[in-house]
């Protein structure tokens, strides 16, 4: 399994606050990483740096050995790094198809000419229908507005979107925090499907059982510092929780 993305010496300061303090992180191809930590540990911030939402204050990001500077989420997306935010990823007032194709719409062809400003809704509907069926994602209708779907359906649709766009690293920030147990399983299944397709996944969660269910490796952040980075089989939820709350370590942000 080769290395896909490497973050080296990442710092992120918000004014005087050091949200990320010298973090290194390596992500292998098709690897599932569980990123955990207490509230305000810096998980979301680190992931936003990785996905181009924030520039790092210091540090470098490499994708397949090549240094990349992400000026926007668009740049990150272009090399296959996609972050799904807690409920930010979808447009609630658009339907399922419109959301799946958001940013990659198929143009209508008239007289063999692509009309970029017109939408080929029929083809998009057909494809998203087929695609969701393949992934066993059930929605009443792809014409349904996303706001009328359940939390789990929405989460599934936004994950499905990333596969559709040939993402190579998908970042999920608390994907299971707002949905039912049954739907959580569906989301976790989808993560394994991503892995099967060779897509790497970082899942940010505070639910240990979800992390241990799908992750290959567990990374712990505490007050902006990485305090643990270990294969799942070499640790236990109890040990991880100890690292999260900082037993036996004085790690902090020295400013």
């Amino acid at each position, binding site marked *: 399994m080769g290395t896909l993305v490497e973050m080296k010496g990442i710092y992120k300061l918000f004014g005087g606050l050091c949200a990320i303090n010298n973090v290194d992180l390596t992500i292998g191809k098709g690897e599932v990483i569980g990123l955990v930590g207490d509230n305000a540990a810096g998980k979301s911030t680190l992931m936003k740096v990785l996905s181009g939402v924030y520039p790092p204050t210091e540090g470098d990001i490499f994708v397949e050995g090549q240094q990349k500077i992400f000026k926007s989420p*668009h740049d990150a*997306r272009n090399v296959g790094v996609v972050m799904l935010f807690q409920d*930010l990823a979808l447009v609630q007032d*658009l339907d399922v198809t419109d959301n799946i194709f*958001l*940013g990659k*719409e198929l143009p209508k062809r008239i007289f063999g000419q692509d009309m970029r400003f017109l*939408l080929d809704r029929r083809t998009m509907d057909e494809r998203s229908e087929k695609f969701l069926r393949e992934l066993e994602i059930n929605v009443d209708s792809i014409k349904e507005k996303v706001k*009328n779907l359940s939390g789990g359906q929405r989460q599934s649709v936004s994950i499905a979107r990333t596969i559709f766009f040939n993402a190579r690293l998908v970042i999920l920030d608390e994907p299971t925090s707002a949905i039912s147990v049954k739907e959580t399983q569906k989301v976790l299944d989808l993560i394994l499907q991503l892995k099967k397709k060779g897509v790497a996944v970082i899942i940010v969660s505070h639910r240990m059982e979800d992390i241990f269910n799908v992750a290959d490796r567990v990374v712990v952040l505490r007050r902006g510092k990485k305090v643990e980075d270990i294969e799942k089989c070499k640790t236990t939820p109890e040990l991880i929780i100890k690292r999260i709350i900082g037993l036996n370590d004085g790690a902090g942000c020295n400013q």
Partner: protein
Amino acid sequence: MNKFYARFRLFYLNNSIIFIFIALSVMSGILSDKFFSVRNWLNILNNFSVTGIVSCGVALVLIAGGIDLSFGSILACCSVFAAFLEPRSLFLAILLPVLLGVLLGLFNGFIVAKIGANPLITTLGTQWLYFALLMIVTSGNLVQGNSDTPFHFIGHGKIFNIPFPIYFFLGIVLFAWFLSRKTLYGKYLFAHGSNKNALFCSGIDSSHIYMMTFAIMGLLVGIGGVVLSSRLIGVRPTEGGRYLMNVLTAVILGGVSLNGGIGSLVNVMIAVVVLGVIDNSMVLLGVPYKDQQIIRGGIFILSIIYNNYLVNQSEIFRRKSVSQES
């Protein structure tokens, strides 16, 4: 509540403006026997054609999550400009006011979308600014047009016995509907109003879309200004003010969400006709002008309550359908 019923209820609510329209028409028909004549209906559409054209533009801005209160001043600027140009050149009297509309709309759009200023305050400001400039240029006087130029035909001509402004009205509605429902621009328009962060995360810079929407509103208001100007023999700089209330009422009654992302141009157009029917009935029944104003104010407030109810109901539906599945 069963899901099918919930869905039906939502559909019914979303299209309730049609029932309002039918109920009002039946009532007006009972109150006045002149109401259901073809002539009267053409009259209603003709009288409200400018309101309809402008409402389309304003509705687009609201769907994008913004608001523009300066359309009355833009309308006045464009129609006065058209009246000024009309004796000189038919072509320029149509083209330049429309361009002026685009420009003024674009200016609003630039401040709101690119600089990021609050649209309500910004366009309240440009409403004053545009109006003040117009007053300086015209010294507050009526700008006299010419009543027998071909320009006159836009406002008074008929094709197949149907007044020409009605064609404009329907054409613009069709254009705006097509734009909002069938094009990439339209999709991003709704998306921007609903959740611009999602667009940003998908790598789409929607501030262009937002800015363009103000310009498109300016375009439609400019066209409305030309139609308005050609209906009148002289245009007063204060002409635009009368439209502020009607247009805002139509857009709100048409169910466009004041938070953006939700709206149907077809419903807005039905709302325009509803207002036309109410106005027409008041005239047919001989309601005095002062009372008419009170009724209009009341309808405005009722529209806001109705709009609020519609938006809340769709939120409730959302919560219900979500909790049913989990």
